[in-house]
Each structure stands twice: as structure tokens, then as C-alpha cells.
């Protein structure tokens, strides 16, 4: 069952590469059909409330590579597959004007497979390899429309994340030399049997630098605004919505919580990193007039919220962090898709040139309003609930100043998005946008579905649903993996 998440996208990619050149409908069909199947499957697995394992090649864990689907993996898996489905539906009209659509969809599915595999694998070196593959596919997709800005962003992204991942590899080497095994549960067992603070601290620093580069935590965030703002919009949505989470945050928390084991010091470090990311991201976003660049800086800020929640280490904090992660991937991909829709019909991303678009593009306008209110934390939408839980967890843990910072950053986010709404969608309609039309219906469809999710995801907190969705993941982070 778990292998399907890797086999199907790869199979689709290879078939598209073989046959997609002759008929573009094959690549379109494969592009949306495989994520659709997998998202249904992943939701079904999430509701089953079990721990799935699968031994690849029939070899038991220390010898072979095991796929592990526990609560945390399955939660991430569901989010990734749903967002990938939306981005795939959105890409079909968006990509129409470019050549080599089949290679676009092949790379898209390779990226999908790599994210799924990185989430499911239980082997630390295999995790590294799949992160690397997702990275290579995304470097190429960022520079898919070969414009100068995109090439520059892609080069920067590739160099920085390669350096980060080499650091991770050095850490894996030290870990292997010490523990002499590669399976994550095994390494955790060895490390708890013979702890060694000097070595482990160095390895932790290497892992934070490496995965932090992938997750764009603040000292290592330089690549994110460039890559996110210049990539094609569905790819931006994927990068910001799921890739930095599944390859960055997931890998970081999986390694820190389940392999190395958290202690009070490490929690402090993660909280501090999260706070810096929150504040710096939102302050830098304040001065941006490029729509997508502004969203990219907000991604950094929201990643800070997630790290803050998870770093608190209390069950409520972890719940808040994971819930905010789910919400963020929904509303941030929706915002990037909105920005893409604006760019698709007007050809510009500069907020100063836009204005009054919500009259001409009602669906884009209303969905972006929902997403903006959601990211700013206005009560009925999902962003409010997760931010509320994180702030409440801060207060519960006795760290009032953290809660205060979170509230202030939330207010700054609100003001920043009021700016977006005012300049882009409300206000006077400029002369040159008189002839605008709404974007094609497939793009509208994916935006509408995502905005419905934005409205409805507050329901995930109802205890009956929460026990399926979040409680297994929280217990995995608190108690460690069991195979």
C-alpha cells in the first residue's frame, strides 16, 4: 500500500516522458489523475489510525530499507497529496503557453514521488537521497521559463541547498561512524544506550543548518524569496505549500525528535530560531511591492510560527504547530495561486500597477480575500484557530513574551495583507485593465476548493476528528517511533 505512493508518480513520470510528446492529453491526464488517486488513498490511510510498515525487497529493518507510515508521516502525506492535486489541476491551463509541457509534468511527478518517499522512508540516508531528488527537480522547475531572473534564483537556490545538504551528509557520516547503522529507529536506540553530548551537539548543529536551509529558517533563508517569487505560480505554491515543509520541517523534526531526542536546550534553540524567523520575515515583507515576493517573505514568517509551536514541546504546542502547518500549506498555496491568476491575466506582479481587480475577476478576488483573512488570523477561518492554539500554548508554558511576539507578528501580517487587498483587488479600476477576464475554469476550480478548505479546516479541532488527524502525530513526536 505504502509503495504505491512512490511507484505511481514515478510510473506516471516515465510514461509521460515516453509518450507525452505525441499527445499532450496523456500528460495532462497523468498529471491530475495520479495525485487524485493518491490523495484519496492518503486520506483513507490517515483515517485508518494505524502504523503501517513495509519492508522493501522483503528485508527486515536493519538490513533493508523500511517504509514507515506512522501518524506524523500520514498527516504530512495527506497534506502533500491534496496540495499537489490542486497545483496539478491549476497547472493545466497555466502551462498552456509554454513548450515542453510533458517534461514539466514529468518533473512535477518526480517531485511528487520524492516528497512522498521522503515522508515515508525510515532510513536516514534514504531520506537524504530523496530530499536531494526533490531538490534537483525543483531547481529545474524554478527555471522552467528560462528568464534571467529565474535562472539567477535557481542558481542561488541550488547552491545554497546543496551546501546545506552536504552538511547534512557530513552529519549522517558522523552518526553512521558512531552508531554503525542507518535505520532511524536503530540509531535512536543506540544513541539512547550510549549518549555522547559532544558529538551529538555538533551533529545537531549540522542538521539544523542543513534542514534549516531547506525549510528557510531565518539565517539560511536567502534563497526563498528569489526562488518563490520567480518560479511559475503552481510551482511556487508547491514550493511554499509543501516542499519546504515535507523536505525541510518534516525532516528536521523527525530527526531532532525521533532520532536524536529533544532536550531543554534544543527546545530553546528551536524557539529562538522560530521567533527570529517570525519577526524578520514579517518585517522584510512589509516593504515589498512584488505580490509573490511579499508572499514568500510571509512564508518565512509562518514557518517561524510552526517552529515556535513545535519547539514548545508541550502536547498543546505541538498540536498547534502541526495544525498551523496544515493550515499554512492550504492558505499559502491558495495565495500563490491567486498571485498566479493575477499574473496570468494582467502580466504583472507589481502591486502599484494593479487595482480594482475584484470587479473583473470575482473568483480570484473573493478567494484571495478568504486566504488573506485566514493568514492574518481573523476568527472564523482556519488560521485563527491554529494561531490561537500556539499563543495559548505559549501562555500555558509560562512564556508570556513569546505569546506577545506572536500576537504582534499576527497584527503586522494583518496590516500587510490589508495592503495587498487594497492595492490589488479593491480601489479604482485602472484604465489598462478594462478588458480583463476571469481565468480559465480549471484554475478557478482549484482555487475554490482550497478556499473551501480554508473555511472548513477549523472543524479539524473537533475532538472526534482531532483524535484521527492530529493525536497520532503528536504522540509520535512525544513518544518516539515504534516499529
Amino acid at each position, binding site marked *: 500500500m505504502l509503495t504505491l505512493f512512490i511507484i505511481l508518480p514515478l510510473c506516471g513520470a516515465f510514461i509521460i516522458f515516453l509518450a507525452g510528446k505525441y499527445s499532450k492529453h496523456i500528460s495532462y491526464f497523468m498529471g491530475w489523475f495520479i495525485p487524485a488517486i493518491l490523495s484519496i488513498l492518503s486520506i483513507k490511510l490517515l483515517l485508518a489510525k494505524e502504523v503501517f510498515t513495509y519492508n522493501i525487497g522483503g528485508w527486515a529493518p536493519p538490513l533493508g530499507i523500511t517504509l514507515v507510515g506512522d501518524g506524523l508521516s500520514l498527516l504530512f502525506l495527506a497534506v502533500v497529496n491534496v496540495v499537489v492535486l490542486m497545483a496539478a489541476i491549476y497547472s493545466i491551463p497555466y502551462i498552456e503557453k509554454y513548450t515542453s509541457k510533458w517534461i514539466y509534468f514529468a*518533473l512535477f511527478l518526480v517531485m511528487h514521488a520524492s516528497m512522498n518517499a521522503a515522508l515515508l522512508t525510515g532510513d536516514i540516508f534514504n531520506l537524504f537521497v530523496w530530499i536531494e531528488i526533490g531538490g534537483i527537480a525543483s531547481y*529545474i522547475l524554478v527555471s522552467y521559463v528560462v528568464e534571467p531572473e529565474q535562472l539567477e534564483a535557481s542558481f542561488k537556490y541550488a547552491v545554497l541547498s546543496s551546501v546545506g545538504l552536504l552538511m547534512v551528509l557530513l552529519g549522517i557520516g558522523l552518526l553512521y561512524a558512531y552508531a554503525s547503522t542507518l535505520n532511524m529507529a536503530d540509531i535512536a536506540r543506540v544513541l539512547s544506550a550510549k549518549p555522547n553530548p559532544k558529538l551529538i551537539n555538533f551533529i545537531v548543529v549540522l542538521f539544523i543548518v542543513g534542514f534549516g536551509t531547506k525549510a528557510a529558517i531565518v539565517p539560511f533563508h536567502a534563497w526563498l524569496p528569489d526562488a518563490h517569487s520567480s518560479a511559475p505560480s503552481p510551482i511556487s505554491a508547491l514550493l511554499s505549500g509543501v516542499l519546504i515543509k515535507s523536505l525541510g520541517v518534516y525532516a528536521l523534526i523527525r530527526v531532532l525528535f525521533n532520532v536524536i531526542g529533544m532536550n531543554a536546550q534544543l527546545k530553546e534553540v528551536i524557539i529562538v530560531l522560530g521567533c527570529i524567523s517570525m519577526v524578520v520575515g514579517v518585517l522584510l515583507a512589509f516593504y515589498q511591492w512584488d505580490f509573490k515576493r511579499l508572499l514568500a517573505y510571509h512564508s518565512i514568517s509562518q514557518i517561524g510560527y510552526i517552529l515556535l509551536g513545535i519547539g514548545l514541546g508541550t502536547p498543546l504546542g505541538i498540536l498547534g504547530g502541526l495544525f498551523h502547518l496544515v493550515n499554512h500549506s492550504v492558505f499559502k498555496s491558495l495565495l500563490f495561486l491567486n498571485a498566479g491568476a493575477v499574473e496570468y491575466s494582467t502580466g504583472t506582479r507589481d502591486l502599484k500597477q494593479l487595482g480594482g481587480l475584484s470587479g473583473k475577476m470575482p473568483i480570484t478576488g473573493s478567494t484571495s480575500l478568504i486566504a488573506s483573512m485566514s493568514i492574518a488570523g481573523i476568527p472564523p477561518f482556519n488560521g485563527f484557530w491554529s494561531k490561537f492554539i500556539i499563543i495559548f500554548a505559549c501562555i500555558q508554558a509560562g512564556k508570556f513574551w513569546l505569546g506577545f511576539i506572536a500576537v504582534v507578528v499576527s497584527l503586522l501580517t494583518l496590516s500587510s495583507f490589508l495592503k495587498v487587498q487594497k492595492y490589488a483587488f479593491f480601489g479604482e479600476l485602472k484604465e489598462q485593465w478594462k478588458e480583463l477576464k476571469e481565468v480559465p475554469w480549471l484554475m478557478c476550480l482549484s482555487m475554490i476548493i482550497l478556499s473551501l478548505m480554508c473555511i472548513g479546516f477549523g472543524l479539524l479541532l473537533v475532538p472526534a476528528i482531532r483524535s484521527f488527524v492530529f493525536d497520532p502525530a503528536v504522540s509520535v513526536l512525544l513518544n518516539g517511533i515504534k516499529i
Partner: protein
Amino acid sequence: MIQIQVLLVFMIIAAAIAIGTSDLLGAVVSIGAVGLGLAIVFLLLQSPDLAILQLVVEILSLVILIRAVGIKDTVNVRERRFIATSISVILMGLFLVFASLAILEIPKFGNPAMKLSFLYLKDGFRQTGVPNIVSAIMLDYRSFDMLAQIVIAFTAAIGVVVIARKKIYVNKDKK
């Protein structure tokens, strides 16, 4: 092992030349020297598989780097930036200090722990019928890694094709 240390010093010198020289072609050739040194180290440390692979990969990447350098680029920045240089040297120094504290904790050179790999060595030949244990691990025990490698080759190939394409928009005038 004294041979390894000599080779490592050779590689460090070659790498320093590759970084420091102002001639790009010379830099590429020096990086080739580093790679060849690495191939010899692999050979000395009993892994001929890797020595062959490293040699071949070195040739291929050398050819392609020379192709990139062949665009005659005269830009070469030789300027003194004391602040940036000193900050990065301090960073490197800190990294080296902490790293050398950390490497004191792992098993010494020449005495690996080999808990997992001894299982492979003991049973690998019997279970898979492959005398080359590296191939046995690569293709049978950890064949998921092999799948990943093949996906990497596939991705790089089609990625290079897509970046190198000339025509980007379907309609010429639509931009």
C-alpha cells in the same frame, strides 16, 4: 597510513590552487587533479568500484566544465575584501575546532564499528549469490537507493534538456 596523508595534502594543495588561481581553465584542471587524487585514495582504501566510478565521473565532469569555461570569460575578480574574508576565515576556524572535537568521539581511523556491515559481509554472499558485496547491497538490500539513483539520472537528463531548449513560448509574439 602515511600514503593517505600525503595524498590528502596533495589534494588540499590542488584544491587551494583551484580556488586561488585567476585562470578559469587552470582551476578546472586543478579540480581534475583533486578528483584523481580521490580516485587513488579509493584504490588505496580497498574500494576499486569507487575508484573506477570516480575516474570516469571525473573525465565526464571535466569535459563539461571545460565546455562551460570555453566561453572565454575574462571576468576575474581579484580584489581585497578584508571584512568578508576575515569573517569567513573565522567561521571556518570555528567549524574546524568544533569538528575536530567531534571527530575525537567517533571510532579511530582503521577501526570502524561495523555492526550493520558485518551482517552484510557474513550473510550477503549466501543470501544473494553475488560475490561483490557492494553490488549485493546496492541492488538487493538497499535497492530503493538504486531506484533513487536512477530517478536522479532521469531527472538530470530531462532537466538539462528542458533548460537548454531554445523555443519557450508556443506563440512567438505572445510574451
